[in-house]
């Protein structure tokens, strides 16, 4: 979701000044790198998602920003100031912890007030601010409860209110919705976006859930083995992944190895050895003759048909398995030339004529613009 229609895409503007920057940040634990040479610029009012599997370094990167880890190499900048050596308690960022980390011996009120008390605000002002925040997260009635008297969703909201209390320039959220069940999660995602827009803060969210990242983010940074492998808008990440890893990590994809057979005036001709066929492409792709590339097509961009006569790309195969998922079905088709591909098909009508096509001979077709060519 490009969450805020009024938001200018500052990352497209070469003149725009980034609000937050990682410059060549590397972090090693006992010689083993967790984050490797990350360069990243994040702009004001962004809701940036760091996405990656476990051990990809996304949480370490967040902790470096919060000040709990200091980078082995590189520097971190906020609003033009180098904060690499500023202790966590002096940084203008606040964090919402994955485990919430609510103080068990304090009431909800005192938890939210904790940061404000550290700032030495007068009691009356603290009381006003805390009640505003509790209202924002709809917990006004629970001010005197202790954390262990709250449900998981309520604790999550207390943690959010506490992190927002000091009106930080940047709010860091570590797997903020991880512990919630699916329905609550979806509601909370929308609520988070609303809060972020109304407060005009910069949010950085760490998540392993690609759907969550797609829903929340203005931009997504995909991490793998400590490297930031791609940083783009959700749409770009999905439709134009820059590597086989990203293509496979975000959504499902069919990958085929290809060889460049001809490169005439920038028009590539590809031959997929696995499919034993030439691939028709729309649009420009760069590559040298004889170079090996990956050709990737998303399952929903392939079609299932019995009559391939006017298709650009068409291959014959046998339906191996069908998974009915309600809104759409996934078909695994064994192609005659060998590989098994995945095709998804929306269930537009209740009586789909491919619903019971197990073992049936079918054709897979796709447009020239459906696939992307990846060099790594």
């Amino acid at each position, binding site marked *: 979701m490009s969450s805020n229609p009024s938001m200018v895409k500052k990352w497209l503007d070469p003149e725009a000044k980034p609000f937050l920057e990682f410059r060549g940040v590397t972090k090693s634990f006992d010689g083993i790198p967790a984050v490797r040479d990350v360069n990243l610029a994040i702009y004001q009012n962004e809701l940036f998602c760091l996405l990656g599997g476990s051990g990809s370094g996304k949480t370490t990167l967040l902790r470096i920003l*919060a*000040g*709990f880890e200091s980078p082995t190499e590189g520097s971190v900048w906020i609003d033009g100031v180098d904060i690499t050596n500023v*202790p*966590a*308690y*002096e940084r203008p*960022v*606040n*964090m919402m*912890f994955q*485990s919430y*980390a*609510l*103080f*068990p*011996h304090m009431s909800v009120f005192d938890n939210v007030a*904790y*940061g404000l008390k*550290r*700032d030495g605000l007068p009691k009356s002002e603290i009381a006003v601010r805390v009640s505003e925040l509790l209202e924002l997260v709809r917990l006004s009635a629970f001010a005197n409860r*202790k954390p262990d008297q709250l449900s998981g969703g309520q604790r999550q909201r207390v943690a959010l209110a*506490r992190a927002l*209390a*000091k009106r930080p320039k940047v709010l860091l959220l570590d797997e903020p919705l991880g512990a919630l069940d699916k329905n609550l999660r979806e509601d909370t995602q929308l609520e988070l976006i609303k809060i972020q827009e109304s407060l005009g803060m910069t949010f950085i969210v760490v998540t392993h859930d690609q759907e969550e990242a797609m829903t929340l983010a203005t931009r997504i940074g995909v991490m793998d083995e400590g490297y930031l492998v791609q940083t783009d808008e959700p749409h770009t990440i999905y439709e134009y992944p820059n590597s086989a890893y990203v293509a496979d990590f975000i959504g499902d994809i069919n990958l085929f190895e290809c060889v460049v057979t001809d490169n005439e005036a920038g028009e590539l001709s590809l031959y997929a050895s696995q499919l034993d066929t030439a691939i028709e492409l729309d649009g420009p792709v760069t590559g040298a003759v004889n170079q090996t590339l990956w050709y990737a097509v998303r399952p929903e961009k392939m079609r299932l048909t019995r009559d391939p006569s006017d298709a650009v790309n068409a291959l014959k195969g046998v339906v191996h398995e069908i998974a009915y998922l309600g809104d759409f079905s996934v078909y695994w088709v064994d192609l005659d030339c060998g590989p098994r591909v995945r095709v998804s098909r929306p269930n537009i009508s209740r009586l789909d004529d491919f619903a019971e096509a197990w073992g049936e001979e079918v054709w897979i077709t796709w447009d020239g613009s459906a696939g992307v060519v990846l060099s790594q």
Partner: protein
Amino acid sequence: MRVVRRLNTLRRDWLSWIPTVWLGVFFLIPFLVVLKISLSEATIAMPPYLPIFEWIEGSLLEIRLDFGNYLFLIDDPLYGAAYVESVRIALTATIITLLIGYPMAYVIATAREPRRTLLLLLVILPFWTSFLLRVYAWIAILKTNGLLNGLLMSLGVISEPLVILQTDVAVYIGIAYTYLPFMVLPLYASLSKLDRTLLEAAEDLGATPWISFLTVTLPLTLPGVVAGSLLVFVPAIGEFVIPALLGGNDTLMIGKVLWNEFFANRDWPIASAVAIMMLFVIVGPLMWLNRMNAQHEEANS
């Protein structure tokens, strides 16, 4: 199902009987014996007190309870002063032990393995040597021409030897040294249970390390502080060996008074009365703390 449940309750009952029987045999019966002696009259005989129960003319049971021993304790200011002194010395020593023990426990709890195990072992290690020997060793360290004075004088820190031995300070040192493990272990247990992300949360919200210690670490490890302090305070009140060896003649502790009554004066009834009173001095604050704790727990749940 029912049979199984019954068996389970039976087994539970049986298990709960073990400490009950233990306490009965080794605490309640000796306590009653001491209570009996404390209410009897002293005499020069063996044993040195008159019986409480006596059959007269074969059918009349005479019970003679002598509360004079307790009245004597209240009457003679020596005993009251000894109780107050014992509590004062034990309390001071407990606070000193806490101030030394807390940072130690903190360092151990935050150390990485295998250093953590090693440090824990070092805390317990002195128990391998006899307690008496270790207290004697302190005499050699603290005396006027002892190790400590020798070291400080050769370093030029002091020109005159410090008089530490046979003062209250030596008693504090002795108690703090002897009981330190009893303070460190419960503190270590509650510190190592502490969730480190809570400290990160405090730091993230702007608390300096000192403030986050005061507002998060200390309140959450209070049960360990209470447990450790009691484990030091309670035995320190009745401590005899340490004040006898390290303290001066004017160090008045109830353990010493008791010893004097029992062995020097051979007045068993008075000695018993002192012991019973001491028990109440200890049990009183214990029960109060227990109630405070229970109320605290209740307020938390």
